[in-house]
């Protein structure tokens, strides 16, 4: 057992080779290409890009392949690569109102300019295993009929409420202040909303889902309505210092969720709806909805609400949302701890001896002698 | 960059990765053992009045994330161009806004407490000053005590402004807040972190 802990270089190299073999699986089965992962496991790729904070479908697919499909491991791989990349500056804010919409729904209005566009969605599929997918090599599905969506005429639902003054305006209160970057500066508390949203966007989907769910069940309830969820491509623009005007870097696919939440008003503010916001790379509605619920919950302080639930506690949420940090620290318990454990053993044995000695002293001499 | 300049800035480190590592270890040694004089001897041809040690410290520590204050004597077009080119540091005219300060004329130097002191919650947010002095000897002179010093260290410094001892005493009294100093002289440097007590 001593040898097992004291592994050494050869043991590590062998473990890597075993992993490579496991990854490949049965060689009689054709090897998976990253193009297949990118195309046919696209939602896995989207999650890895979002939580890996890097928009690169091919590298995310590679990470998934390398990680044998383990999403958190793939996120970690992408993050460790991202951290080595030089940065040239910050892009202009993307304008989701100009999105090439593939899907857009609102739960708050039956119909609205631009209409409801279901797009590709699991929502109304019956979750019956489709055994026809067991077979490969068949004909690709016939193309779906094109909708009549006109992206240009698809204003944000919340912008319409905003015009009526029914919802708080989303305005940048410090437009000239640099946007914080939580990957370049350690988070400090209280954190501003931009930093919080970055933390949530990188945050683990499962963690945010559970927190968002807890909000709905009454732990920091904020009466949410899904005002609008849209998914599609937006253009990313960058202003190079030497040019002084914006140039297009290309399109990225994003999902955006805008929640509408109740707010009763205060002494200074009339009753008005408030907002929660979620944004993620690719198609991740569950993630963006959970993110929007938690974003709104974290605004409790700013809106003068009582803070008594986990989702409202920014240190709790933001320190524990990152799955690369969490996964590393939970799993570091696998590392040897025998020095500290030995220190504890010495302590506990000493304390037990002291307790026994005290018990001996307390007992009549004859009984103690009889036990010897 | 200054477009009235015709000549390109003189070179920085020949091997930026290794030279800055060695310079950093020198600076680390200096601040970990106040009173110790270390040499930053990588070949750097910085424009006057930048000394070799001050230039090496700038190349090693300063970049676009660290606003830099430069005194009047050093703020020549050549020096500014050199710093912009090699460090990319934003130059500030406000001592209190600077993370680093370059002092080449100690007579005209702003008081130590004009620079950012940090605060009790974040004392690390204070400024680091690179101060050019005329002489630096690790014997006689000031008696230094504090963290990093076994018993006491001796450091003779020529060219500090009058009243420096009292000003340093106030800086020390503000611990954990306060500025940290690197005293540069040619290619040599010694450090006075805020934790060091100074006596004549």
């Amino acid at each position, binding site marked *: *057992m*001593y040898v097992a802990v*004291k592994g*050494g*270089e050869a043991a*590590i190299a062998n473990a890597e080779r075993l992993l490579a073999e496991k990854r490949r699986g049965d060689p009689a089965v054709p090897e998976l290409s990253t193009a297949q992962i990118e195309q046919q496991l696209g939602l896995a790729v989207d999650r890895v890009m979002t939580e890996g904070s890097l928009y690169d479908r091919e590298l995310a697919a590679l990470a998934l392949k390398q990680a044998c499909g383990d999403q958190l491991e793939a996120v970690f791989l992408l*993050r*460790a690569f991202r*951290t*080595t990349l030089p940065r040239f500056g910050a892009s202009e804010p993307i304008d989701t109102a100009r999105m090439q919409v593939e899907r857009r729904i609102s739960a708050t209005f039956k119909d609205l300019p631009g209409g409801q566009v279901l797009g590709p969605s699991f929502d109304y599929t019956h979750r019956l295993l489709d055994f026809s997918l067991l077979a490969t090599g068949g004909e690709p599905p016939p193309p779906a009929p094109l909708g009549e969506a006109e992206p240009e005429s698809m204003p944000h639902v919340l912008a319409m409420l905003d015009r009526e003054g029914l919802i708080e305006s989303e305005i940048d209160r410090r437009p000239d202040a640099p946007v914080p970057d939580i990957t370049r500066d*350690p988070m400090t508390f209280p954190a501003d909303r931009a930093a919080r949203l970055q933390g949530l966007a990188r945050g683990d989907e499962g963690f945010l889902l559970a927190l968002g769910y807890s909000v709905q069940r009454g732990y920091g309830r904020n009466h949410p309505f899904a005002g609008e969820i849209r998914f599609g491509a937006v253009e990313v623009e960058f202003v190079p210092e030497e040019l002084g005007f914006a140039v297009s870097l290309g399109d990225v696919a994003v999902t955006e969720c805008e929640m509408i939440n109740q707010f009763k008003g205060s002494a200074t503010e009339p009753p008005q709806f408030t907002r929660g916001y979620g944004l993620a790379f690719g198609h991740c509605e569950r993630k963006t909805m959970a993110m929007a619920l938690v974003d709104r919950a974290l605004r409790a302080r700013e809106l003068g609400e009582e803070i008594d639930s986990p989702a409202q506690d920014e*240190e709790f949420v933001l*320190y524990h949302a990152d799955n690369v*940090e969490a*996964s*590393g*620290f939970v*799993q*570091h318990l696998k590392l*040897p*701890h*025998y*020095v*500290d454990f*030995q*220190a504890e053993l*010495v*302590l506990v044995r*000493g*304390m037990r001896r*002291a307790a026994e000695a005290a018990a001996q002293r307390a007992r009549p001499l004859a009984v103690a002698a009889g036990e010897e | 960059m200054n477009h009235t300049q015709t000549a390109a800035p003189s070179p920085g480190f020949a091997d*930026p*990765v*290794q030279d*800055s*590592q060695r310079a*950093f*270890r020198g600076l*680390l040694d200096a*601040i*970990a*053992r106040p009173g110790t004089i270390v040499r930053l001897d990588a070949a750097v041809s910085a424009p006057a009045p930048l000394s070799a040690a001050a230039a090496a410290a700038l190349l*090693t*520590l300063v*970049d676009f994330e660290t606003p830099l204050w430069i005194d009047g004597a050093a703020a020549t077009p050549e020096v500014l161009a050199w710093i912009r080119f090699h460090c990319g540091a934003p130059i500030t005219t406000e001592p209190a806004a600077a993370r680093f300060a370059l002092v080449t004329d100690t007579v005209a130097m702003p008081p130590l407490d004009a620079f950012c002191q940090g605060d*009790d*919650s*974040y*004392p*690390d947010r204070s400024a*680091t000053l690179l101060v050019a002095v005329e002489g630096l000897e690790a014997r006689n002179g000031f008696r230094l005590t504090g*963290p*990093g*010093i*076994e018993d006491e260290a001796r450091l003779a410094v020529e060219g500090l402004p009058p009243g420096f001892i009292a000003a340093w005493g106030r800086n020390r009294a503000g*611990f*954990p807040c306060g500025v940290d100093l690197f005293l540069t002289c040619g290619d040599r440097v010694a450090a006075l*972190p*805020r*934790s060091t007590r100074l006596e004549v």
Partner: protein
Amino acid sequence: MDGYNFAYLDEQTKRMIRRAILKAVAIPGYQVPFASREMPLPYGWGTGGIQVTAAIIGLADTLKVIDQGADDTTNAVSIRRFFARTTGVATTERTADATIIQTRHRIPERSLRADQIIVFQVPIPEPLRWLEPRETETRKMHALSEYGAMHVKLYEDVARHGRIATAYDYPVMVGGRYLMRPSPIPKFDNPKLDRSPALQLFGAGREKRIYAVPPHTEVYSLDFEDHPFEVQKWEQACALCGAGDSFLDEVIVDDRGGRIFVCSDSDHCGERRAAGHVGAQPDALGQPADKVAP
């Protein structure tokens, strides 16, 4: 390693970490926040120590990496291999030959020298964290030097157990000002922190903090007049080298309760055996011959 900078980190990141290290040295025991980067090794596995080492290491250095006091534990091997690949610097298992020692959970038995730097891997840097989970609160407590809660906690131990029931990561005061966590070293190693001639750097990657103890700086392990600080002692000596004053690992050798004790510091044990010291069961672990050779 192709495609990566010397010591993996880019130069801008190194500058950022170097600035943090200088401030940490200037404010002994204070935890400097830094923009910790994702490393290719998991958080919690030494990323803070690795970033500190990467920021200080150069071609003239000789690196030693230990985990639990030993050079041949898997994580120590992995980290040493990482630096060998990314820097090409010399590595050693000999404490005496190292200029930088990165460690998890131990300080070598051999006294460190002024020309050595020891880098500790730190999981949780905040000494008050178990008493107060909130960073906003603990930061205030440090600002005000308000450490009464820690004394109360230790005193409660004394009241309940008759002694301070903390065996590792034992809290210390640095330079009389900052309460500091020495990382999960056994309290056996705490006296080595005090007035060490070597510079001691601490890196917590996941928690994004760097702190330092400069050479010759007082590091005081908290205690009470009637319950002075004391270190672990063993009734046994090392089975391999016979050392009676080193930190011992307990090794279970069979399933009938058989156990032996051996030095946790593998270099120290090897050096002693090479010098002719012999314990009661020198072959108990079938140590390879090269471990015994000088």
